[in-house]
């Protein structure tokens, strides 16, 4: 039994948990910064920038995740290769599209065809991170955009009365106070992001779902030392426990952050906190 759980395949399974956690660890801050950037752009008094921000939010929010993942990743990958192709092989005689085939010169391949497998996997992973960040960044932008507008008007007027510039008001008054309004929405997004990680599998990254399916599948004695029946249910049960545990821990942490942010805020919860302390 101990041997069974330490086969190379199982090691792949354990490592894939790390892959998922790493994806979350990189994607969350990246998506947040995309969201912040998107919200700032959408609020901008400069019209084209504001359109850009609003278009980003509307388009990405409106397209189904799966369609976005299937289309955008291939488009991004091929787009990078086309750009590299024009930069590195300017006198390539053939066209890139030949019937069904997509052909760029070997030097333009991303990553290079000769690169070891781990480079290919890392590249695939980075594309996945970027795609997740764009999708969740749009939702985050919408949340943050709303939160910035929820900061009480009186606060902004007071700031103006003190002679603060627009920029000062934004960074010193709006940004510190908006988090309390943004957190419930962002917390939700975090939960959805955790549950969206199995989409990695769609992008060709070997994640926990891939391995659970592979390991749980029926094995006949001819091809393995550890034959077994259809054990997919048990492997997926492990995933269930993992996801439930992870979301529970997230809930607890988010609650703590919320309590911390509420402190001294001009909201009902902040008022209640003040009264309880007094």
């Amino acid at each position, binding site marked *: 039994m101990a041997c069974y759980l330490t086969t190379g*395949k199982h090691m792949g399974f354990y490592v894939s948990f790390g892959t998922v956690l790493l994806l979350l660890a990189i994607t969350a801050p990246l998506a947040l910064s995309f969201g912040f950037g998107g919200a700032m752009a959408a609020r901008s008094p400069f019209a084209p920038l504001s359109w850009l921000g609003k278009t980003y939010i509307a388009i990405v929010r409106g397209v189904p995740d799966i369609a976005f993942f299937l289309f955008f990743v291939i488009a991004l990958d091929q787009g990078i290769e086309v750009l590299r192709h024009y930069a590195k092989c300017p006198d390539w005689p053939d066209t890139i599209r030949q019937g069904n085939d997509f052909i760029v010169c070997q030097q333009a391949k991303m990553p290079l065809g000769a690169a070891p497998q781990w480079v290919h996997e890392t590249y695939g992973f980075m594309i996945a991170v970027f795609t997740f960040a764009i999708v969740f960044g749009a939702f985050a932008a919408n949340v943050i955009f709303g939160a910035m507008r929820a900061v009480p008007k009186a606060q902004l007027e007071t700031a103006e009365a003190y002679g603060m510039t627009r920029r000062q008001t934004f960074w010193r008054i709006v940004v510190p106070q908006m988090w309390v309004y943004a957190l419930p929405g962002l917390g939700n997004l975090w939960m959805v992001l955790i549950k969206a990680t199995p989409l990695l599998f769609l992008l060709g990254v070997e994640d926990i779902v891939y391995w659970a399916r592979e390991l749980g599948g029926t094995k006949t004695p001819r*091809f393995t030392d550890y034959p077994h029946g259809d054990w997919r249910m048990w492997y997926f049960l492990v995933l269930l426990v993992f996801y439930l545990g992870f979301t529970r821990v997230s809930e607890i942490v988010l609650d703590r952050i919320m309590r911390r942010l509420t402190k001294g805020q001009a909201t009902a919860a902040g008022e209640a906190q003040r009264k309880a302390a007094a």
Partner: protein
Amino acid sequence: MKNLIMTSAALALTAGMALADGHSVVRMGTEGAYAPWNFLNDAGEVDGFERELGDELCARAELTCEWVTNEWDSIIPNLVSGNYDTIIAGMSITDERDEVIDFTQEYTPADPTSFAALSTDVDPAAGVVAAQTGTIQAAYIADQGWTLVEFATPEETLAAVRAGEADAVFADDSFLAAALEGQEELVMLEQQVTLGGGVGMGIRESDTELKDAFNAAITSMKEDGSLNALIEKWEVASTFE
């Protein structure tokens, strides 16, 4: 005779040069879920008939090859967009696929496809048949006008019959024979159908050099009998005459 050797040597040389220019590493795409053709062994590496065959072909064509797994569903789109250079995944040569990609000559002959069910008296024409999506088996059932349910992986087609979701599963005889080994639940039906034009390697249409290199390697394996020996070892198909 001497002339022949000279020409073939010259051909081999030019082919070698052209390949050195085109492919420093040939990436071999497979599914890794279709024993005995291709599967992941306990160490998590690609194994099976096609692993052994592919390594031998690469050695004969003097190519450096690397193995990549990809979902069956998207195995052709990822080939044409250049994520790997060949498909070696028990893929039968059909006219529909040939419109999108090219095939090498077949490395196993066209072989019977079988049904497996919970009992031998099931009539596939009257019931629900499970098959893997995008396979010649799925296309055949649909053409017959029978009731078809498709699944993304071979494993799920078997599970569907065990769970009673489908009455029979329709797949390559060699795959079913291996999957049914050592269990009593599912049995093979007597009815068999021969489909497709044998199994070949899928290669991009523009990649003619690579196709020629693998064709030459397959021919040489057919001629010295090593291909038949491999087919017998893994019990994937009937042998070539």
